[in-house]
């Protein structure tokens, strides 16, 4: 098992499997490279520099740009990268081909068709509804159809992974599943349970209203269904990053995975606790009883627990590796980490920023405390530390070994990639801090503050920091895009003996020690469904039985 891995030659991905994963990365990076162009435009608008009239070919309004920024970065870059990365983890982890490669291909190309279908109305200005698309604000039907295709495509790719895992289980009875495979499957299963909400919102409420089959929508029920998906969406972004931190980063830093069983336990906790807490996004909603909001606040605190466990295990694994590399001292070992490796650097900085993101998340979840910051600039300040730091910076770090692995080409200018990491990190610190501050002062989110008549002069310094930080972040990510693009397009190839491997860390503990209850699916799946029914059942029943489809659609 583990011992064998070092001696026996492993089954690497075949050329066609590499291409399949590679297409995910190509679409992901392409979406990101367009999506981030709007970031500095928004940030500079806050600082008083309105670029929209000059760059009208990019967006006809702030809100159209914001819709593109949110959809392309938070939905497309993440979903495409994650499905590609998890496909690689499953194939490499199981050392076997996909059971039905055609099924995964269908899923992938459905996502591509969905992306194009949703992108056309957004670019045409027919879907300026932001990535939360709250009804009764209404976009072209194609926007929603495109989103549904992206989600269903990702489901189908997930099914492909399940069939592959099932086949492996039959071929390897009694063997504990490799952690990276286990974590990939938990992520996909959680995603499929979570996206049922958004699927119901679009298929049962929004599209029937657009087609004129109903007299309108019920905006409150729509919000409840949306946030049933909206918060676990965050875990869909973050869990693949956790996978990398738990099981790959230790290998890259010369260490081992500190605890295989606790890592599994925390993923199981994410499976059962990620979904039943969406009301913490609706603390300020009128149509949800306060008692249910309080219950979901408690459940949100519970899901903070596996994240705290993750923090310990990841830091412990890093310390183990750093001390083996000669690092000394209570804190001093940190210097012995391979900071000059761009893949490691981006992920370490991602984890560092995520500590602030996690603390902010606990604040957001704190029921009445939320009144001080609901829908203020604090919120985008917060989630740029999660999706744009923990997830995005980790995916960037992964790309720095994955693109060389997939292409057999050396990483172009690793030093520049390191500079890019520090640049983005610095920009993020400035930007997100300023966003949190103006949010507490009362600045609303999703608003071109440069146009808002109620912004006092005294905020100018903070707004300037938003503009500056946002621009610096853009430079950092542009460096990433250039580095991976040149890496993939260059002629130079890695010699046979220097080919990049998939970094898979061994566990400090023998995998055969992992208790069986941590490798059994049924009890956890049942627990997940039961908790969802208990936490959402009564309110969904009430809101659905009392549905009032009285809100006709409005275009922005």
């Amino acid at each position, binding site marked *: 098992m583990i011992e064998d891995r070092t001696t026996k030659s492993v089954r690497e991905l075949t050329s066609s499997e590499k291409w399949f994963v590679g297409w995910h990365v190509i679409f992901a990076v392409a979406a990101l490279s367009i999506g981030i162009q709007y970031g500095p435009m928004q940030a500079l608008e806050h600082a008083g520099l309105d670029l929209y009239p000059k760059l009208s070919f990019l967006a006809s309004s702030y809100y159209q740009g914001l819709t593109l920024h949110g959809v392309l970065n938070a939905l497309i870059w993440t979903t495409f990268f994650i499905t590609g990365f998890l496909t690689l983890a499953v194939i490499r982890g199981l050392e076997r081909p996909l059971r039905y490669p055609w099924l995964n291909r269908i899923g992938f190309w459905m996502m591509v068709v969905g992306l194009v279908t949703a992108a056309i109305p957004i670019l045409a200005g027919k879907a300026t509804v932001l990535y939360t698309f709250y009804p009764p*604000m209404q976009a072209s039907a194609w926007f929603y159809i495109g989103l549904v295709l992206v989600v269903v495509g990702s489901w189908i790719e997930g099914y492909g992974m399940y069939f592959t895992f099932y086949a492996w289980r039959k071929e390897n009875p009694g063997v504990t599943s490799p952690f990276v495979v286990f974590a990939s499957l938990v992520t996909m299963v959680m995603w499929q349970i979570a996206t049922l909400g958004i699927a119901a919102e679009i298929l049962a409420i929004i599209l029937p209203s657009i087609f004129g089959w109903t007299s309108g929508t019920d905006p409150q029920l729509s919000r409840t269904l949306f946030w049933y998906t909206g918060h676990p969406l965050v875990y869909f972004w973050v869990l693949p990053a956790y996978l990398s931190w738990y099981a790959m980063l230790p290998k890259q830093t010369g260490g081992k995975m500190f605890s295989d069983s606790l890592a599994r336990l925390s993923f199981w906790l994410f499976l059962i606790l990620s979904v039943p807490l969406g009301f913490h996004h609706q603390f300020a909603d009128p149509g*949800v009883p306060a008692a249910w909001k309080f219950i979901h606040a408690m459940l949100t605190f519970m899901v903070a627990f596996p994240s705290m466990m993750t923090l310990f295990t990841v830091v412990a694994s890093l310390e183990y590796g750093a001390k083996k590399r000669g690092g000394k001292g209570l804190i001093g070992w940190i210097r012995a980490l391979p900071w000059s490796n761009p893949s490691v650097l981006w992920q370490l900085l991602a984890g560092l920023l995520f500590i602030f993101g996690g603390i902010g998340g606990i604040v957001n979840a*704190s029921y009445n405390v939320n009144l001080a910051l609901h829908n203020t600039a604090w919120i985008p300040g917060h989630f740029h530390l999660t999706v744009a730091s923990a997830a995005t910076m980790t995916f960037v770090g992964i790309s720095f070994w994955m693109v060389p692995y997939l292409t057999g080409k050396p990483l172009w200018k690793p030093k520049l990639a390191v500079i890019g990491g520090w640049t983005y990190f610095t920009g993020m610190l400035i930007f997100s801090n300023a966003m949190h501050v103006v949010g507490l002062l*009362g600045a609303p989110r999703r608003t071109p503050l440069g146009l808002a008549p109620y912004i006092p002069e005294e905020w100018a310094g903070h707004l300037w920091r938003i503009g500056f930080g946002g621009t610096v972040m853009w430079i950092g990510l542009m460096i990433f895009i250039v580095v991976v693009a040149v890496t993939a397009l260059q002629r130079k190839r890695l010699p046979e003996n220097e080919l990049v491997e998939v970094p898979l860390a061994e566990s400090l503990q023998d995998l055969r020690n992992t208790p069986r209850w941590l490798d059994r699916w049924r009890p956890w799946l049942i627990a997940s469904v039961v908790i969802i029914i208990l936490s959402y059942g009564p309110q969904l029943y009430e809101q659905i039985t009392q549905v009032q489809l009285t809100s006709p659609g409005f275009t922005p």
Partner: protein
Amino acid sequence: MSDETPQTDDAQGDDSQGDIKRHVHIDPYEKNWIRISIGFLVFFVIMITIAGLALGIQVPTDEGRVDPNTLDSEPPWSEPGLREIVPGEEYEVYVVARRFSFDPREITVPVGAKVTFWATSADVQHGFALEGTNVNMMVIPGQVSKLAATFDEPGEYNFICHEYCGLGHAVMYGTLTVEK
């Protein structure tokens, strides 16, 4: 942490296979970390509960429904504005949010007044956040939002729409004046 001979701790020592013990190994440092984590989370929950129950800082709750298409003919929404309940002490304001303004846009109350804000929307989703107070709520068509605040300091307080409601969203706000 001790990497040489980690102290084992059998959280579950049932399932054995030959001479291999299956168990969850928890490092003693990790045990402490878990205790600290749970301690923090419990502390926060207690603070929130105290703020909610003892200090009465509450979030909006279910206040019944309304038809957004007939607001103009349905009291109290047909006559938005200030109502005096107890002069100088207690007031109610009915606010209708419409793209891209609040009705009423200007409200004046005396210092020391406790004001209850009732709000709904005639079209899309809006927000209602009153500077310097805990009044921060979604304003959703078909639903009635309610929160209250007491004003002990004279001055001008803006109430801002904080949910994207269309191209004119950035200019949607009103002002509450607290007079001596």
